[in-house]
């Protein structure tokens, strides 16, 4: 197997209303790319069943360096945590092409 490099996978689950704002935040904070998927579930702000537009969630995934991931996490925490349904978590991943992330 080719040499692998450690990176962080940052996963954000939040209201779909935030998609545009969130993605532009990610780019301005140095993420090279991201993946958005529609999601539904339940949290302390109630059931998000995605039955119609405003009740949907998104799950945004970014693979990036530890520094970028921390910067993004701090920014999101400060900007969105108090008023929006949002969780985020970090995990270690291995990538084969470090220059991409």
């Amino acid at each position: 197997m080719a040499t692998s490099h450690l990176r962080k996978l940052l996963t954000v689950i939040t209201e779909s209303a935030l998609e545009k704002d969130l993605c532009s935040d990610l780019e301005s904070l140095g993420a090279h790319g991201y993946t958005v998927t529609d999601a539904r579930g339940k949290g302390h702000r109630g059931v998000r069943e995605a039955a119609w537009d405003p009740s949907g969630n998104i799950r945004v995934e970014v693979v990036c360096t530890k520094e970028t991931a921390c910067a993004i996490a701090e920014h999101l925490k400060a900007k969105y945590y108090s008023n929006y349904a949002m969780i985020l978590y970090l995990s270690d991943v291995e990538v084969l092409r470090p220059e991409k992330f």
Partner: protein
Amino acid sequence: MNGFGHPVQAQNGAPDENRRVKKHFLQNLSLKPLKTMTTLDPVILFFLLGLFAGLLRSELRLPPAIYEFLSVILLISIGLKGGVELSKQSFGSLVGQMGLVLALGFTLPLLLYPVLRLLGKLARADAASLAAHYGSVSVGTFAAASAWLTAHSVPFEEYMALFVVLLEVPAIVVGILLARGVSRETRWGKLAHEIFLGKGIVLLAGGLIVGWISGPQGVEPIGGLFFGIFKGVLALFLLEMGLIAAAQAGNLRKHGLFLALFGIITPLVCALIGGSLGAAMGLSIGGITLLATLAASASYIAVPAAMRLAVPEANPALSLTAALGVTFPFNVLVGIPLYHRMAVTLFGG
């Protein structure tokens, strides 16, 4: 004939008698059930089906993409119909009406805000957001109202789809100003983009423009999709709306009596204001009913999205519970026929 117990001689020799018997027979068989059913339109029955299925926690739900598709068809057909009618009107004659309708859109949230603050004791952001929801309009309710008027052969000004577009936006602006004041933090450019280029406005206004340019003959080839199956689409749409409304029941229990009362009394008062304006504008009884319904309806797509971004501290559950869980079902089931009766009683002379 014998099998139905009618005398044989009715068949030979007495054609009049024969016809009478046949008519009687038809009345007995088919007209009677029809008569009892006309009180509830099938699209309303589908709404009730969704409502009950949701309340009983049925697994039933339409895939989100289907719901999206249904609302696209509804928005475009309403826009197209309105546009075709607009092409027959002189634009100048409508400018005055358009101004009045815009004024209605700015006034309604301003009237509701103090009520919510003082009687509801809601926080500033919540009161502003609810006022914006109720100042704006619901296209689904408009569709149900126009279907009701058509089913009851009440003519109305078809170009009123234009008013739907005009009424969507002002309340959002007023709501943001009420919550924020004139604040530099509000990014109006971005918000304007969000509001004017939202799905609802683009499709509705787009349909109006396409219908206006194409005229009656032009839209005929696509009429099968947008007009021919309108009622079927509306039935499915209302089925899903019933499910969504039922999903608000839990929230309603949590947020209590004020929200339920607000969700029923507000449309009644707003309908009176909208209906009076319609009468002052010289609209027909059908038109007055529609403008009353528009004033009575509350937005559940455009406004929630805009408020979520512009006034994030407002609790979205409050306005959605009231708009979807109370006011939408109330308008569809009780409001529309009531507003029509109001229009006939007050302005019918």
